[in-house]
């Protein structure tokens, strides 16, 4: 029988946490991983650009120097790879930090944006915008609005005395995700099979292959806004993860705080889904990996999840665009890699996750 999970934090949440060094250390190391992965991503691609040219092209944006390089190489680096890497960073980071925050708020280690229906809701909003040909603003707005609506439905289903029981979270997520999946199916039913439908299917499969600077901006605004809110609330999220009674005893008002966190996550996930479609597993795998490394304190866990999530998706996307001459859908790769990785994590940490089950 399923039981409620252990609180995701240990120790006095409102008391003295890790020192500055303990926060900065993992963040710097995560940042180094991100930088290394990004360097590989910049140097890889089907169009051959020597690594020194890549460095020169990127550096020339800051300090103009030396003779100009071929325009084709500049286009590839600045207009193809750079926005693509940045978009993967934003989307991967948003999904990972969103997953980490949701797991704390729901006090459940198996929650992710996909499990609780946010992605399905955002998918429907985006697919509807594509069906109606409403343009990129409606795509983002539809994704955000319906992502938020889905989250609200799950929250209403799971709220009540005793917090969010694991079974209620799972059931609420299934109900909401199924409902919006049915609406997505309705949209695909109504779409023209030879024109609109392929665009919807491609978007639903998840990809950052259509990255442009405009899309980076579209993703940056909601993801940065949501990320700032989550990071600002990082210690309060620690308190929330102990449960409403403890949070109240420590002087917090759990319900409005929880709504603030959920809205921030919905904003980020909707922004990510709007520019890249549904990319699964990142929000589940990366927070667990990060938690195994830095522990359950969200003051460290949240920024590390963002950085590792970004690095992970950049790495996956680099594989997607370089492994073959064709383009492999990103959502397929993240699921193919994420599912086995998560299986291993579950096997290794079952006691911590399942409360001795």
């Amino acid at each position: 029988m399923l039981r409620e999970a252990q609180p995701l934090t240990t120790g006095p949440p409102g008391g003295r946490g890790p020192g500055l060094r303990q926060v900065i250390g993992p963040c710097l190391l995560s940042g180094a991983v991100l930088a290394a992965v990004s360097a590989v991503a910049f140097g890889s691609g089907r169009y051959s650009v020597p690594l020194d040219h890549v460095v020169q092209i990127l550096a020339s944006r800051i300090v103009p120097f030396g003779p100009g390089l071929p325009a084709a190489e500049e286009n590839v680096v600045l207009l193809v790879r750079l926005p693509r890497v940045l978009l993967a960073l934003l989307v991967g980071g948003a999904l990972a930090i969103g997953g980490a925050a949701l797991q704390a708020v729901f006090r459940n280690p198996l929650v992710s944006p996909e499990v609780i229906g946010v992605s399905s809701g955002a998918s429907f909003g985006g697919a509807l915008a594509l069906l109606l040909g409403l343009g990129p603003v409606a795509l983002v707005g539809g994704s955000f609005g319906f992502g938020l609506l889905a989250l609200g439905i799950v929250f209403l289903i799971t709220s009540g005395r005793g917090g969010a029981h694991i079974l209620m979270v799972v059931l609420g997520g299934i109900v909401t995700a199924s409902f919006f999946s049915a609406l997505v199916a309705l949209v695909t039913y109504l779409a023209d099979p030879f024109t609109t439908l392929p665009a919807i299917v491609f978007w639903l499969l998840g990809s950052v292959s259509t990255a442009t600077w405009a899309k980076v901006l579209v993703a940056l605004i909601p993801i940065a806004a949501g990320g700032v809110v989550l990071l600002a609330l990082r210690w309060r999220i620690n308190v929330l993860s102990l449960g409403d009674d403890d949070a109240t005893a420590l002087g917090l008002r759990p319900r409005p705080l929880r709504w603030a966190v959920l809205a921030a996550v919905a904003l980020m996930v909707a922004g990510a889904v709007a520019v890249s479609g549904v990319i699964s597993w990142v929000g589940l795998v990366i927070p667990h990996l990060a938690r195994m490394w830095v522990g359950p304190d969200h003051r460290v866990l949240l920024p590390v999840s963002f950085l590792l999530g970004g690095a992970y998706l950049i790495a996956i996307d680099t594989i997607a665009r370089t492994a073959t001459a064709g383009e492999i859908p990103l959502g397929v790769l993240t699921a193919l890699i994420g599912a086995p990785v998560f299986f291993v994590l579950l096997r290794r940490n079952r006691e911590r996750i399942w409360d001795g089950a």
Partner: protein
Amino acid sequence: MSIPEANRRSVLAAALYGGGALFLASCAAAGTAPQSSPQSTPPAGTAGTAPPGSASGPAGIQVTDQRGTVLSFDRPVTRVVTIPMPAASLLAAVDQGASHLAGMHNASWVAMRDGAMGAMYPEALNIPHDIATTDFTPNVESIRALNPDVVVQWSDAQLTAPLEQAGMKVLGITNTGTQQDVDTWTALFATMLGRPDRAVQMKARSDGQQKAIQAEAAARGTGGPGIVYFNRFSGGLKVAGNGSYNDFYIKLIGAHNPATGPQGLQGKGMVGVDVEQVLAWDPEIILLGNFDDAMPADVYANPVWQSVSAVRSRRVYKVPLGGYRWDPPGQESPLMWRWLTDVSFPSGNRSTLRNETNDYFDFLYRHQPSAPELDKILWTEANGTSANYRQFDAS
């Protein structure tokens, strides 16, 4: 899009969004298929090798569809329902009118409404078209209510069995993305309609054009431009790979397709591709298909593509859209071959394509497009800023 791709999509969608119904349907189809085709007795030794046959005589009309199922009719059919996308316009071309079209897929109807067919046969826009889902699953009762003599459907047991179980005759067709498909469908439709001569005429003209194009290509020798056809350009790139019809006609005219060359793609049909790969191919001509709304201006304005030869020489073209799209195989394909030859190997003189299109449309549809209709078919405005396209101007 090829039909296998459409079927993959439908299976994926069904699996994702409630595949239980599909599972049950497939179980039902598997269990009843032997009874659903009592006439399925193709002659031994011919099925799978010889093209589907057709015959007519005093005793009536018999056709063998692409499943090997033999269909018998006492008289030429007068009420045909078509579910596969290209079948409605092909039937109209074979029949030189839409009066025997009793129903069609909504996507066919939309293509008629938005293309030249709607102008040629405005009465066709009143034909019922809410008869099947986007994945071609038939609405049996809607189709039954139309009282068709025959229903044209893709040769998939899950798609044909419900219709046959309801007592309707089903002509199953398959799509391998080749010119032979069009020839076979034309022969089947012509025989059912009691006009076998039309199939002979249409094939003769198609074969004649193909030989002429081949002869011109042979006379020019090797060294034709590299052409990449984009099935999708907006929202992710998809190009024509191995086994696609587009690859066939690119090579037919004496050009080459980098997507199927030494640095080509592994997959078949329309394959998703990274923009860097296209930049590495550096095609000399880019063709934008009619399966999305991308136009040459979109490519010219996009800074990512500025270094590509096709953009620098302004040789990006939207593929024409006539009675049906010219991208996939169809009854207007001979015109596509001529158009592609003219844009790929411009002679410097005015093209004869407008006159040829008038003549061919008269032969196919008994309709000669007006000058504005021809401009719309050839996308003369959208392609107007591309190189060598003035050869298609009206005067």
